[in-house]
């Protein structure tokens, strides 16, 4: 068993739970931040033996990691194992000169800012606290602190959004010259408060979504970004002296590498076993305070399932997927059928055939994957 080289740490605390959010979050609870960090470190001590001596990546996600009490955040960062890439998610309004310095001191190498939009009316719909200028200021503060790998998250398909709104959001984001951009379609979950409030408008946005997606890809690639994953873009290496600015942590997921996750709701995948901590904060902290590992849901991934995931995730990337890795998951004949429609390309490589989606295939990646994948006999 090779050692795990990727670590995810979940910090669930937020100032406010946004209507569209479906992550494991906890509002406020300042008094529990300390105990939670204790629990995280306890879990890490329990599970850490699977980790390699030197990690490739650590990712602090949330929640709003930067909403965590600064002392506790600093304590956590100091206790984390060293890694080549240490990413932290941040909300723009939480970024202060102090925070930026704290992150630098904590060896953070990459900050992912949840900008979402630069339009006040859209930020309001999303229930985001930050104003457009907060986003800009956050970027400047991080730059001042020396960060040279900043990512911005943008959302599209927001109720009330127009095609022109999206274009100006992209222009505003590009003006900040981020190294990396993640552009997500707003996914409104059925039955949520957000969906109930914006039902009709969400349907209208859904109709416009394919145009939005094309706008995003066209605009960002034209601006010199590499469309390296379905929703992720980074500055082209040629423009930054060969630096690879892809999110290494996320690449690990998409390439099917093992990863350890700690914190409530965190998922780990190690040696064909996927486990997920239960999302309850109290139970998690009580369990770890008492000693044993918190309760988890376990899923065993057989070879077929792993090949299926490899295919599903690998096809999101702009690099070819070795056919040998996914052969077990392919439906016979599907590859040829899709190749003839110009959605998939097969290329011979010294080490064996490789599979990749064409540009049009990438826009239809979900449908192409569904056609390619064989249904497990179960």
């Amino acid at each position, binding site marked *: 068993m090779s050692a795990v080289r990727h670590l*995810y740490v979940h910090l669930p605390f937020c100032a406010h739970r946004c209507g569209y959010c479906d992550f494991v979050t906890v509002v406020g609870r300042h008094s529990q931040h300390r105990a939670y960090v204790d629990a995280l470190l306890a879990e890490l001590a329990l599970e850490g033996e699977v980790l390699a001596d030197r990690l490739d990546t650590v990712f602090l996600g949330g929640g709003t990691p930067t909403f965590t009490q600064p002392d506790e955040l600093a304590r956590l960062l100091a206790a984390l194992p060293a890694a080549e890439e240490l990413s932290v998610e941040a909300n723009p309004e939480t970024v202060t000169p102090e925070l930026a310095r704290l992150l630098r001191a904590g060896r953070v190498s990459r900050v992912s800012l949840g900008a979402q939009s630069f339009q006040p009316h859209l930020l309001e719909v999303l229930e985001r606290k930050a104003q457009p200028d907060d986003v800009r200021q956050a970027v400047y503060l991080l730059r001042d602190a020396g960060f040279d790998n900043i990512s911005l998250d943008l959302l599209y398909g927001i109720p009330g959004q127009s095609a022109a709104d999206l274009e100006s959001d992209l222009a505003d984001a590009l003006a900040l010259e981020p190294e990396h951009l993640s*552009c*997500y*379609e707003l*996914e409104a979950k059925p039955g949520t408060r957000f969906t109930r409030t914006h039902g009709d408008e969400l349907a209208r946005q859904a109709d416009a*979504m*394919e*145009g939005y*997606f*094309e706008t995003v890809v066209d605009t960002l690639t034209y601006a010199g970004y590499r469309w390296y994953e*379905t*929703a992720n873009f980074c500055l082209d290496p040629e423009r930054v002296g060969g630096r690879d600015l892809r999110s290494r942590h*996320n690449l*690990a*997921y*998409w390439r099917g590498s093992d*990863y350890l*996750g700690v914190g409530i*709701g*965190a*998922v780990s*995948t190690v040696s064909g076993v*996927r486990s*997920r901590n239960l999302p309850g904060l109290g139970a998690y902290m009580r369990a770890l305070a008492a000693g044993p590992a918190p309760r988890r849901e376990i*899923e065993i991934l057989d070879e077929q*399932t792993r090949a*299926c*995931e490899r295919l*599903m*995730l690998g096809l*999101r990337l702009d690099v070819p997927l070795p056919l040998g890795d996914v052969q077990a998951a392919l439906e016979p004949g599907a590859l040829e*059928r899709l190749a003839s*429609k110009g*959605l998939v390309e097969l290329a011979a490589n010294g080490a064996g055939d490789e599979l990749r989606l064409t540009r049009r295939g*990438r*826009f*239809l*990646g*979900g*449908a*192409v*994957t*569904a*056609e390619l*994948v064989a*249904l*497990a006999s179960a």
Partner: protein
Amino acid sequence: MELDRIRNFAIIAHIDHGKSTFADRILELTGAVSEREMREQLLDTMDLERERGITIKAQAVRVRWRDHFLNLIDTPGHVDFSYEVSRSLQACEGALLLVDASQGIEAQTLANAYLALDNDLEIVPVANKIDLPQADPDAAAAEIAQLVGESSDRVLRISAKTGTGVTDVLDAIIERIPAPSGDPDAPARALVFDSSYDQYRGVVAFVRVVDGRFETREPLRAMVQGTSFEAEELGVMSPVREPVGALGAGEVGYVVTGLKDVSRLRVGDTLTSRRRPAAEPLPGYKEVKAMVFAGIFPTDSDEYPELRDALERLKLNDGSLSYEPETSQALGFGFRCGFLGLLHMEIVRERLEREFDLDLLITAPTVAYRATKRGGDVIEVHNPAEMPVEVDLVEEPYVKASVIVPKDYVGPVMELANERRGSFDHLEYLSEERVLLSYALPLGEIVYDFYDQLKSRTRGYASFDYDLAGFQPGDLTRVDILVGGEQVDALSLIVHRSAAYDRGRQLVERLRKEIPRQMFDVPVQAAIGSRVIARETIKARRKDVLAKCYGGDISRKRKLLEKQKKGKKRMKQVGGVEVPQEAFLAVLNLDSERKR
């Protein structure tokens, strides 16, 4: 029993003109059923009949009135079942013609009254519902009198609902309808005018004894088919089965045959005794031929065996339903079914769905076409997809259609009939207000939303009926629907050349709306042979990918993918295009939506 104490009669009435209520009243007045036992519309036993207020299967009931035995042979009120009417009428000497005094005569009443006159039946005209404020008994009586050639004071005026005048009707039955004639001493002969299937006792035949006498346990033979069996039980319906030792000339009753196969005893056959057989059978009925056809497919192809069993069971009680297996590349395995008409089709469909809990896809109804192929072979085509491309001649069934409307609507009716290639036959004033229009029309035009159009253009005032009137050549053509360049067999249709473009266009437009966008452009075409007459393109999707996928939700995303894949497996593949069942359903419902 003495013949002159027996009266056999039927009731002819339009739907909703109160026949069942009237029959109930008779049962009550004659003491056949106590009020406590009285169920509304007792004679209509099937749920569907009760719900729709129509009688589908004829039934016979014996009641006593003033020392006479009256046999009421119930008849269905709808045109599709006129063959059942004619069967019932052959077992009777007289008929009550029941007309709603607030509505007047309807086209179906007319058709059935003519049938009765053709059978030399004594007609007792009755104007019903005189209690209704909008009833015009005098006008109704005048119309009826003119129809049957009687004076209008011979028209009885009653209210079956309140009971007013019903005893007068019973008296009139005895006075006006002749007693059955027949030879009680001749070799026994009985006409089978209906049958039903009892799962414990087998086929139960309803018979009218013409000559001689039948006794329980007697060995019998059906003269036309040659089937032999024993009369396990003889009896009369009063209104429930009541065994009797014997049935004599003039009587109406039932015979429990013990036969387990309905096809061995056909309605219209003559029963005789094997001990002293009659020399000649009674004149039978013409076998009715299905004229309207449709493919019936289970929505879930796994339900094919259930559909087959359900059809078999329906057929036990409905000899006029025919079916044979059909395979469609678009809809899978199913049956091509033959019906007497549209209502018959609707009833079969509803019974399949309701009594057998099946989800069905039904193709657009079509009629029986006769095609003369190059070389002279003549074939009958029940499925448009089977119409040969190269034909010398196509003939289609025609009907003689009668429409009765208030005179203000003559124009719209003529317009509709002309649009539907009708040729005018004659026009007749039934009264100052109401007109009978007679047309020759292709049956194929009637199965395509004719009723609905007629109703909407006459604000529901028109009543309509038709009789089959042979085949005539027509300039007909087969229109095929192609999706992704491949023909969808279930959607082919045969239409008059002049309507081909419009019908093709409609189907193509509907399909474009119903078929989800695919990963590539999909042409949807209507074609006559190799000539495309209408085309739409379903534009390819430009995006189909989940925006976000991170480490914490891989399992969920994978399950979504599996679900999506399973959904794809359920779709029908036509020309490499995934077509959801619902799309076919929507297109096929295009017709039935209009009809409702």
